């Protein structure tokens, strides 16, 4: 076992840390970025590209860095540490993940170089009004027509979906609404005829959209998973990678929030003393620290297992990690606000930004209870002793 970073990894970490610490040093800059037409800073996105960060998980042959979940973790952790709002998760982790695992060489060649260059953003249009956390629950339809398909349906809260250049749409080819088979994946232009997007800000300051597809035609070249209907395995795999990603992001946010809180209780004076001198506050900070370290351990575990070839083992590990992340995020977020008092309740101070993002992380890609159910159903992490 080796928890140390290689030189290359350290370089990635240093560069993304520096870039985001600069960009997000001031909450006013963040607010200004949110007011830009895209809802985030275009200039900063170009910097992600310049630093090579958008190419991390893609193969060298496609112009990428050929790196893995660990390098992605470093970027996501920095995003969390700075409460950044850039669409890295939607474009590189989710959209890029689908392309990597399901794209043909022609599709990869057509799209990935632009993604790496920062000129094409992706979004995964998967979630539906009723689907909640069930990836197999798909009612959007794909009807075969000629050599391609026609899509109809509605997707909700598509991360980064409001301005993505290319949407990756999950649609049902055959079977009932929650069948595991019969699901396809299709590339659709963000402004293609029949695509209607209602964009909005999310609670954590990022962007998303509800998108309807009305008789949207997809040519044969834009079918990622067609007739076979075997998209679910890809979706599960990419979702697991995304969970490993937001686990790292959560750790970044929790770490920063814990530091902020400890600094605050050391300096905030009431009754003539620092509030950190009260033992109840000290113990609370200690409990937060414990929750942080437990979460960090599970984020590492998720990163390690995200590329595991054994899907059953991988999914168990990811569920376990998401449970710990959800519990830690809830506790640290709530206690940080409590220990800050009134100042924790305002958008003018960073604590609230972390708290809100952490709250949303708990709800994304399956909340704590969802993953507890999955894990329990899969038999947990430890096998029972033989009788």
């Amino acid at each position, binding site marked *: 076992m080796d928890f140390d970073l290689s030189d290359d990894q350290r370089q990635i970490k240093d560069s993304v840390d520096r870039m985001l610490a600069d960009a997000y040093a001031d909450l006013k800059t963040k607010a200004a970025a949110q007011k830009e037409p895209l809802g985030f800073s275009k200039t900063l996105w170009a910097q992600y590209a310049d630093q090579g960060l958008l190419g991390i998980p893609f193969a060298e042959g496609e112009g990428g860095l050929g790196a893995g979940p660990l390098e992605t973790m470093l970027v996501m952790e920095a995003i969390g540490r700075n409460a950044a709002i850039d669409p890295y998760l939607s474009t590189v982790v989710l959209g890029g993940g689908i392309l990597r695992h399901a794209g043909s060489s022609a599709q990869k060649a057509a799209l990935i170089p632009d993604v790496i260059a920062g000129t094409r953003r992706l979004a995964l249009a998967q*979630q539906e*009004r*009723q689907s*909640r*956390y*069930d990836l197999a*629950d798909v009612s959007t339809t794909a009807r075969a027509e000629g050599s391609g398909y026609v899509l109809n349906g509605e997707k*909700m*809260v598509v991360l980064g979906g409001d301005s993505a250049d290319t949407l990756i749409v999950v649609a049902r080819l055959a079977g009932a609404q*929650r069948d595991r088979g019969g699901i396809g994946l299709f590339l659709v232009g963000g402004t293609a005829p029949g695509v209607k997007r209602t964009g*909005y*800000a*999310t*609670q*954590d300051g990022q962007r*998303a959209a*509800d998108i309807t597809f009305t008789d949207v035609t997809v040519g044969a070249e834009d079918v990622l998973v067609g007739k076979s209907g075997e998209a679910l395995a890809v979706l599960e795999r990419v979702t697991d990678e995304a969970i490993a990603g937001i686990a790292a992001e959560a750790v970044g946010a929790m770490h920063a929030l814990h530091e902020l809180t400890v600094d605050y209780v050391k300096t905030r*004076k*009431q*009754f*003539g003393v620092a*509030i950190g001198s*009260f033992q*109840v*506050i000290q113990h609370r900070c200690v409990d937060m620290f414990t929750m942080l370290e437990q979460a960090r351990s599970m984020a590492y575990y998720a990163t390690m297992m995200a590329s595991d070839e054994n899907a059953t083992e991988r999914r168990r590990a990811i569920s376990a990690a998401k449970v710990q992340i959800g519990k830690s995020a809830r506790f640290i977020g*709530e206690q940080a*606000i*409590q220990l800050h*008092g*009134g100042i*924790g*309740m*305002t*958008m*003018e101070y960073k604590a*609230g930004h972390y*708290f*809100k993002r952490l*709250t*949303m992380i708990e*709800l*994304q890609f399956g*909340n704590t*209870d969802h993953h*507890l*159910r999955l894990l329990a159903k899969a038999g947990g992490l430890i096998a029972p002793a033989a009788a």
Partner: protein
Amino acid sequence: MDLRFTPEENAFRHEVRTFFTSEIPLAIRQKVEVGEHLAKEDMVLAQKTLAKKGWAAPHWPKEWGGTDWTPIQRHIYTEELQACSVPQPLAFNISMCGPVIIAFGTEAQKKRYLKPMYDLSEWWCQGFSEPGAGSDLASLKTTAVKKDGHYIINGQKTWTTLAQYADWCFVLARTDPDAKKQLGISFILVDMKTPGITVRPIQTIDGGHEVNEVFFDDVKVSLENLVGMENRGWDCAKYLLGNERVGIARIGMSKQRLSRIKQLAGKVMLGDKPLMADERFAEKVAAVEVELKALEMTQLRVLAEDAKRKSNMPNPASSILKIKGSEIQQATTELALEVAGPLSLPFLPDEADFGTGDHWAAPAAPAYFNFRKVSIYGGSNEIQRNIIAKAVLGF
């Protein structure tokens, strides 16, 4: 001992419920029910309706619009008010400043202020907290200096709830800079239109505009606006904070929230069954219901005991009501967030149909964020535990 309500009490419950549901406009009550922000006019209309009936401040003396209800009747009233999603009469007027003026004010002050306070013709805000004085309120620095027959007020208040609507502010200011902490503070009524007052909005994490900073720059106030004795404002403040416990547990509100949660969880599907049919979720809801029932019984015991108490000092049990009441309120917002699940992500502050139809999930996250405040204000839960520790354990 008989823990059941009497037939008279049940009849009374029916009477108040009928009034609330027939006289307070449904549109307003629905906003409260789904968690939408109320407009100023909504709150004014609701309170005026209660005032007309003589029910805006049941715990006030009858001559100022109060009632001669028993503590149990008052409890039933509050519970029904919250259960019917009627906007709570403005606490700053009804639970805070009004009782202080009634207890410490002059006849002239009572005549001038109580009526418009009662029917919300005048909106009050609370100018206690300062950047450096929160839990340690007595360390406040705002000064009121006597000069040419006036007080000249200088300083800064913060977290002032809804100051943007307020006509008046009750301010704690230091009138004797040499006295120690609690001594030397006065309770002064300030017209928000007085020159020298600046209100700056603070955006809260739910995206709303609920609190403000209020700056006082050479604000000239008549000496007549002093309530009680000069330098003895702390007595007023202590009395006021004791009075805050009226309805602080918000039991009716938590009941209403839980029934809304169960309604929504009955519709949201978890695979092929409603979320409410999921054992794990149903057990979590039931666990909160148990806590709430226990708190309700505790509240009734406190009320019964209070009726017999002579002392003006708050019962330490009211700290239990605050701690448990706030924890339960927060637990309901967590459950609501769980029901909304991934659909709680959109931030839709301007949607006309916020909380309804397609956007039923939109208020879940803002409510969860916003309700973090209930364990911070009104004496934080840590401070409440300190109070109990002192009163019950003797530390």
